[in-house]
């Protein structure tokens, strides 16, 4: 007889399910965080290698279409406000016929010696004069020794002459509100004036107390702002920044570049294209030769009978217990004795007797059904024929595994390649080349990371393409223990 299902027990079950789902979600998040930490060096290397020179330590990755001067983490500039006691004087003189004037020739005299010259190009001169004491001044413009304006003409008449477009104030001023001589801004009589000289393409805005005022380009490279605003008092301590508005493309091109790669690939002294090729030759030849030696040896140990076979195999295996660094000094001596310093064979040959590889192949060949060999022997096949027609085709997957493991190991063999090459070697590999490069360019982090990418990225791609083969080798190595 069926009883109606009670409803109450379902609630805790649902809650439990919810809890376990939340727990699973938490673990998932934790794994993602861990994965990001593990991948951090790879990511950091790649992003730094594309960064513009000298920006490796800037924590900015998204191209900024709005760039502030001064930067956001620096204090904004104080905006000078003209008052009766503290007026501001500013000239703009536009004379297209004058052409470009050498800044060094601008020579204000007398009490006007303190001055700020904003721009002198294309016939437009922007000049801010900073008299030491308030008062009334007369100004003379001389061009190549020729007086443009008679010295006794009152400043106001300059306007009438059309040589000066505007005289903002007639007496004493301080305008040096920025270290950037090509940026000037001040407020006078409720009017905001700003001039920015920026040869780069782009639009500009003045950011004053949170409000934006766009500048307009009055002349190629000269951006100006004249605008009536409600009066600002010096006590308000108004502060401003200049905002450059760029297209995303321009901003990205300024932040990221291929120059680092171009530099290390075309460098005479440290050529990473050559290092890459050397590494490729060393790792590939080591891989192929190791596979050949181990397959042949593995076949002999697995399928052939000869004196002291098992004893010999144990002896070979036992030498695996010796830590690799024992071999450094004697192998070095033997290799230089053979005259193999600074050569490919010097880097490759000493590592060819791969005992793990021999073991791997012997195991694998041992699993080939014996009938296959027996049939071949009945057909009268010789040992080399059996090896060629049976062993090699069947062993191809494990041979590829051994090739890949050897390739990766020799690609990254730093110690041996460091000691067997001198600095002027023509066969330097990537890690040693990077080490040499770093010796000369300690702080060129962007280029160093570009060089590092040459070593890391091919390995990442190789692994992702042949993952199964790598992991099979590991599993085999683990099972044997």
């Amino acid at each position, binding site marked *: 007889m069926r009883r109606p299902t009670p409803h109450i027990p379902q609630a805790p079950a649902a809650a439990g399910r919810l809890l376990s789902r939340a727990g699973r979600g938490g673990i998932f998040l934790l794994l993602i965080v861990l994965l990001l930490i593990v991948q951090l060096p790879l990511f950091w*290397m790649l992003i730094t290698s594309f960064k513009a020179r000298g920006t490796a330590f800037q924590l900015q990755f998204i191209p900024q279409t709005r760039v502030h001067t001064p930067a956001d983490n620096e204090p904004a500039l104080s905006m000078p406000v003209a008052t009766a006691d503290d007026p501001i004087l500013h000239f703009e003189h536009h004379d297209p016929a004058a052409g470009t004037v050498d800044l060094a020739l601008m020579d204000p005299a007398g009490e006007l010696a303190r001055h700020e010259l904003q721009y002198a190009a294309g016939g437009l001169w922007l000049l801010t004069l900073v008299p030491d004491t308030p008062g009334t001044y007369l100004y003379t413009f001389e061009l190549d020794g020729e007086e443009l304006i008679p010295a006794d003409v009152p400043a106001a008449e300059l306007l009438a002459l059309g040589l000066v477009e505007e005289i903002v104030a007639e007496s004493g001023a301080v305008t040096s509100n920025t270290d950037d001589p090509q940026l000037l801004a001040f407020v006078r009589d409720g009017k905001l004036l700003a001039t920015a000289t920026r040869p780069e393409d782009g639009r500009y805005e003045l950011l004053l107390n949170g409000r934006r005022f766009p500048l307009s380009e009055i002349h190629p490279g000269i951006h100006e702002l004249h605008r009536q605003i409600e009066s600002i008092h010096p006590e308000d301590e108004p502060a401003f920044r200049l905002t450059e508005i760029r297209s995303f493309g321009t901003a990205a091109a300024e932040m990221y570049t291929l120059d680092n790669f171009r530099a290390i690939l075309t460098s005479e002294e440290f050529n990473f294209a050559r290092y890459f090729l050397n590494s490729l030759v060393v790792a590939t030849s080591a891989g192929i030769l190791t596979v050949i030696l181990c397959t042949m040896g593995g076949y002999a140990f697995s399928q052939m009978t*000869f004196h002291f076979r098992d004893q010999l195999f144990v002896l070979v295996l036992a030498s695996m217990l010796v830590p*690799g660094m024992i*071999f*450094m000094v004697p192998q070095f001596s033997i290799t230089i004795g053979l005259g193999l310093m600074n050569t490919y064979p010097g880097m490759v040959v000493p590592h060819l007797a791969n005992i793990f590889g021999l073991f791997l192949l012997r195991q694998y060949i041992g699993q080939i059904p014996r009938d296959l060999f027996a049939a071949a022997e009945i057909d009268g096949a010789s040992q080399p024929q059996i090896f060629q027609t049976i062993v090699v085709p069947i062993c191809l997957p494990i041979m590829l595994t051994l090739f890949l493991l050897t390739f990766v190991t020799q690609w*990254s063999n*730093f110690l041996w390649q460091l000691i067997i090459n001198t600095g002027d070697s023509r066969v330097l590999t990537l890690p040693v080349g990077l080490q040499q490069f770093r010796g000369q360019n300690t702080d060129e982090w962007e280029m160093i990371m570009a060089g590092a990418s040459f070593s890391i990225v091919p390995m990442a791609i190789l692994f992702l393409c042949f993952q199964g083969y790598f992991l099979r080798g*590991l*599993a085999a190595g683990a099972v044997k223990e």
Partner: protein
Amino acid sequence: MTHARPRITLRQDLAALPFLAPFFAVFLLFIAYPIFYSLWLSVHQVTIFSDFYDIFGTMTYVGLENYAHILTSVQFWWAVGATFIYAVLTIIPGIALSLFLALMLNRRLMGLGVMRSGFFIPHVFDIYVVGIVWLLLYYPGSGLVSRFIAMIGASETARQGVLDNPMLTLPAITFAMVLKNAGFGMILFLVSLNNINPSIIEAADVDGASRRQKLFHVIIPLLRPMILFLVVTGTVGSINAFAEIYAMTNDTGGVPVEVLGETVQSARTGGYHLFRTFDEGRYGEAAAVSFVFMIFALVISFINFRLLRSSD
């Protein structure tokens, strides 16, 4: 007659020879002979009378002087200590992290394959190059990790840089190596976990074991051979550790520290110490150092194998 082992003939030996010769040519010249040659080197010294163009040929016999020198040198024992610290700091966190990852990824999960590859991939990268990337991350003051350290309050440590702090040089290096190699241990543990007979877990379930009990009383004991394997390879790896120390200490071995009146470097482990001795041309002493370390490695492997056997 049928029970007698077939006699091995000379013809069979000759047939095997071509297959064995290539491997054994390299093996004898570059593995077997060097072990004895190394022993010979370890009782010789390069002297001022050694011919510069034939240093190895003209070394003088000094008996056990190299060994006596090593065993009484503060630098050597410091290297042993540093290697021990390196081993502890890589093996224990390394196994813990790999085991955690393997247990977490041994189930159905979104993006499982991506995660397994993602954790494993740094293992195939060049150690020296990865070390250089970490040098950038650890850069005093402005490196990413230094900024993070400053953010969590240790601004003095961040300004100095962890690699230039004698107490933190080895932990910083091993942290990078644990992250790099965790995926390797993870794959090995995943293989072992797959090899566990499901009926054992089912039996534990029938007995009403909690998840925690199953983990600590069933799964981990079954993983013991793999843990021991990682301890042995980790120990040998610590003795061989070189490229990461070379990279992250700018070939200095770390910050100078005063120990028992001698100056030693904070991260000068066995492998790096051997390289330095070698690089300074003290070939005899270097051979002796490597022999002493080989004995350490063999003793540790032996102890581990004994442990392995007793666990079976």
